[in-house]
């Protein structure tokens, strides 16, 4: 037992203002999420008229009553559809998350057809690919509620068309890997979307609503002159009885969800799951206090053990090598009964911190202990002494260890994530199994002021070499432009919009989220799939 004690002054000005700022950020995110829900719900009348449920209503019925749902990347595409922060509708036109269906944990993917008839929105492709990757890596059955007009021809982009092939490749890979893919075709699923359906192992179609064809009536008429109705070309009755594309005929959305739930229950997927860990003691400090731990000014030092003690079982953290490389904190703990190694930053990463972290990562791999990176790093230490001490080679060792670690790694951007610190601490580029941001997180190659200072020093030196006079006003302008450019890209409203994480989480929810993803990782470790050389093929 190694309970750690808090030295957080919860009455302090710093704490109070940090908490206030954090709450405002959370509220802003919730408002954006609500905007997306409202935008989708605006189609209710149209859906009602067709006897359809809104996509989120379908999702609500699909998920087990009251069961946890970890929704992924709600800010996807924010300000990429519309730069106006008050008009942009984030989400990428899709809803994705990990939830329970008939007692089975699944990756659930839903086309948000309430918005733009389900056409993919900016970065929606990345969100969808990431959802598929999560299912593959974590051996989760994949359930998709499909209704999409396909690509928006007005916003056609060739790069998305080509990269979009990955969607279908992933579906085929999932099937071959031994992961059931279950699809409800709630509405239109045309052209590329038809393969989203066709590559599924189980397909549920809805009488009078499902549409799956490579070319719809307009394109057919344009291409061949053939005249056909949508229902004849790709309706549920045709597909379930004639083409064999559909396996189940449902009467409406609710009925289709019933069949999907019934089917998933009967897959008996839980038979491969290890028993859940015993109930764990909660932390001794309130999660609520996580709101005020991180000062909004990321240059203020933070003792990240204040974070650890608010997320680990019983606030029990056994620190590893605390007297060596103390700015890089490593240690073992349990989260909701799952053993975990934690690496975090109480200062820049120095040579001893890098070597300690490397040692610790290798030790975690030896004992098959997942690793949690709580990032709050301004980067690796710089300077002559550090270069001489071999900061590059020690940093490289750390990056090698992170890259090649054989255990699940989970990253949370808790504050600063600058420079190579982002890499050494298992940033998104290093494919952590899951990656979440706190609302205050900042990601950049360096701090904006350092970047601006660097550029003015370089530019001034260049001017001097060329014999130009100093241009103080020009330099000030340059600095301002650089700072604006960096600042505009470093917060979660940009990083998460580009799907550089799996979503922004309320710091208070961190333990719940970690408990869930650790359980997902543990299930995946224990589960032996039945891979096949080829995917399941239809008749």
């Amino acid at each position, binding site marked *: 037992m190694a309970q750690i004690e808090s030295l957080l002054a919860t009455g302090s000005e710093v704490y109070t203002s940090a908490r206030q700022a954090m709450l405002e950020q959370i509220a802003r995110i919730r408002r954006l*999420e609500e905007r997306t*829900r409202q935008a989708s*719900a605006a189609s209710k009348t149209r859906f009602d008229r067709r*006897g359809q*449920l*809104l996509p*989120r*209503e379908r*999702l*609500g*019925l699909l*998920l*087990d*009553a*009251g*069961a*946890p*749902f*970890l*929704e992924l990347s709600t800010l996807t595409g924010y300000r990429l559809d519309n730069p106006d922060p008050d008009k942009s509708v984030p989400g990428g036109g899709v809803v994705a998350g990990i*939830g*329970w269906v008939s*007692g089975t*944990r699944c990756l659930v993917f839903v086309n948000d057809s309430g918005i733009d008839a389900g056409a993919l929105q900016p970065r929606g492709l990345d969100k969808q690919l990431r959802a598929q990757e999560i299912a593959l890596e974590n051996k989760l059955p994949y359930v998709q509620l499909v209704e999409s007009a396909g690509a928006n021809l007005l916003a056609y982009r060739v790069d998305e068309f080509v990269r979009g092939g990955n969607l279908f490749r992933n579906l085929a890979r999932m099937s071959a890997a031994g992961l059931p893919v279950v699809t409800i075709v709630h509405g239109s699923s045309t052209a590329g979307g038809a393969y989203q359906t066709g590559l599924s192992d189980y397909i549920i179609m809805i009488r009078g609503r499902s549409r799956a064809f490579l070319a719809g009536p307009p394109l057919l008429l344009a291409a061949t002159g053939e005249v056909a109705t949508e229902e004849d070309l790709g309706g549920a009755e045709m597909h379930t009885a004639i083409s064999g594309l559909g396996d189940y005929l*449902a*009467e*409406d959305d*609710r*009925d289709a*969800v*019933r069949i999907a*739930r*019934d089917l998933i*229950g009967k897959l008996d997927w839980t038979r491969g799951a290890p028993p*859940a860990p015993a*109930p764990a003691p909660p932390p001794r400090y309130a999660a609520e206090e996580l709101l005020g731990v991180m000062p909004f000014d990321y240059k203020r030092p933070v003792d990240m053990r204040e974070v650890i003690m608010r997320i680990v079982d019983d606030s029990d953290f056994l620190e590893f090598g605390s007297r060596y490389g103390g700015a890089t904190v490593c240690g073992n703990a349990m989260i909701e009964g799952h053993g975990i190694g934690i690496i975090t930053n109480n200062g820049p990463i120095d040579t001893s911190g890098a070597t300690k972290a490397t040692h610790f990562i290798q030790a975690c791999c030896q004992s098959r202990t997942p690793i949690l990176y709580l990032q709050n790093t301004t980067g690796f230490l710089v300077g002559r002494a550090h270069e001489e001490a071999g900061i590059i080679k020690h940093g490289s060792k750390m990056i090698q260890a992170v890259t090649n670690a054989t255990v699940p790694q989970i990253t949370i951007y808790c504050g600063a994530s600058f420079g190579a610190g982002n890499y050494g601490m298992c940033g998104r580029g290093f494919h952590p199994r899951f990656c979440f941001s706190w609302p205050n997180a900042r990601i950049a190659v360096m701090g904006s002021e350092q970047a601006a200072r660097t550029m003015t020093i370089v530019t001034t030196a260049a001017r001097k070499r060329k014999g130009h006079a100093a241009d103080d006003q020009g330099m000030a302008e340059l600095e301002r432009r650089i700072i604006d450019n960096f600042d505009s890209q470093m917060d979660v409203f940009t990083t998460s919009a580009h799907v550089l994480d799996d979503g922004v989480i*309320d710091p*208070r*929810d*961190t*333990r*719940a*989220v970690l408990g*869930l993803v650790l*359980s997902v990782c543990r299930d995946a470790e224990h589960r032996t799939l039945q891979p096949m050389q080829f995917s399941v093929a239809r008749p």
Partner: protein
Amino acid sequence: MAATPFTKILIANRSEIAVRIIRTARRLAYRTVAVYSDADVQAVHTHAADESVYIGASPSADSYLNIARIVEAARRSGADAVHPGYGFLSENPAFARACRDAGLVFIGPSPEAIAAMGDKATAKRLMQEHGLPCIPGYQGDDQSDAALLEQARRIGFPVMIKAVAGGGGRGIRRVQDANEFLPALRSARSEAQAAFGDSRVLLEKAIISPRHVEVQVFADRHGNAIHLGERDCSVQRRHQKLVEEAPSPAVDAAQRETIGSAAARAAVAIGYEGAGTIEYLLDASGQFYFMEMNTRLQVEHPVTEAITGLDLVELQLRVAAGEPLPLRQDQVRFSGHAIEVRLCSEDPTQSFAPQSGRMLRWTPYAGVRVDHALESGADIPTYYDSMIAKVIAHGASRDQARRQLIVALEDFVALGPATNQDFLIRCLRHPVFAAGDATTDFIDDQALALLGVPAGAAPLRAAVAAALLQYSSASTQPEAAPRAGLMPRVPLTLLYELDGQAVSVELTAPAPDQYRIALAGDVFELALQRLDETTVLITHDGYRRRAAYVRSAGSVLFAFAGGVHRIQDRRLAAAKHSAGDHDGRIRAQMTGRVVAIHAPAGTRVSVGQPVLTIEAMKMELTHCAPRSGILTQLLVELNAQVTQHRVVAQVEEPGAEAGGNAVPQEAS
């Protein structure tokens, strides 16, 4: 007179009365033997006895009414006495005789006394001879239509037609005028013939809005007889008692002495032995009329036990053993007031149709006497009476007893087949009953107040239903249970039926066990807190109340604010396209026996046309064609036993597409 000692009693009955008799027999160190039919293999009364003997198939005629099997059961088990309880063979002289012939002590009067009292006409004559006032009427041997009609005219309408061999409310008709007489006579006769094998009837002047008052008497074989005061059983439905009390609010001490001592004298005069009840009608002017004598322990005996402090079964056993009565009339003391209600598995909202099935949760209220033989998970068979418990409150005053009983019923948890719990509470609450003014017309007169849908609170009840439905749907697997931080921010349009009414609500859960429910313009925020496995505390805007609930397949039963409600989950049910889209299948609306087939297979039927009739617990339910077409399949035969919800027939429209085989199930 000779003593007739015995040591081992066979109880020729079932359910609560068997358990109640066993309780006293145990206390007095008698061995007990229960009997059981197929339907009662696991019944509580079999476990309550020392031993139990199988006596035959589920229908009463094959088991509890089978004299030979019961006498044989006594022989096999070595029982030397038989207690018949009430109902079944308790007033069957042939049974009493068979017991006597087999050398068994019959705990009740002689076969001759039973026979004499069992024939209503004889009983009336006998009682008249011994000074008990009788209702003017006709009880002659001329049973011709003409003679009976003439007698009815002589007595004066309205008149009652009653089966001579009657009991249990069957074979009774009230006739307002001469025009109605012959049809009523025919139907009373056929009911009497079916129920008792004797179609003879008697006529009586109908007493307007009478009270039903009865006197408990006890007589021994040494010439002693006492009365234990009266019971008022005026609250009746279809001539079956629902609420009984002692003493009667309409009888004073002088009247008690008059009717009581007359009853006791009559018992001695006819050589009666054991427990008996003399039933009177009491009219508005205070005039008593003898109605009939019951030669057994009554269902409602506990109210007499409550106010006298006596154990009537003990008295029965002592008298049957040949002992003299242990007390004289002047030693009988009355204390306070007792009220009993009969809790029945029947649905008051559906003409009191009897309900069978599994009692999922059964927690009798602990603060009052409850005579029952149920437990959670026990089945209520379709073959027998629908009464499942008697709840008895005893207070210093009538109103105290009444209030106790209301509390007891409100807190009584009976989640399973529908019961009359709420109906009984409404009876007890009703100002007419509270004032002690209920007559036998009470339920008919006040039907609206007793059966109508209560105004108000309905949206809250629907919201509570939604919350409970969602709460009870949550997984018990810890990782899949609701948890803060991972609540789905996904709206849920929940569809369900609440007591048969379709309800749609928008439900969100901001935190575990907290629900925000929008329905028809109202928003309810409810928090649920687990108290035990099936009880939750429901907080609505700071107002906290308990609710008991139980979940079974796609339905949830819950008791909240004094009523039991049933929720059927419909969230995953396909919307019905139109009323014309009925699948044409007729499903048994209750578990029971097919007693009539009105349309043979292959015939054309039109919508609403009767196809077959199912009977259970003395109640018949006709099943009609759900649409017009050909009755292509009849899956049952006459007299077949059918299970509720099973398809019994199929009506198809030729040429129409046949429906699929899969019947969608509700969410699990």
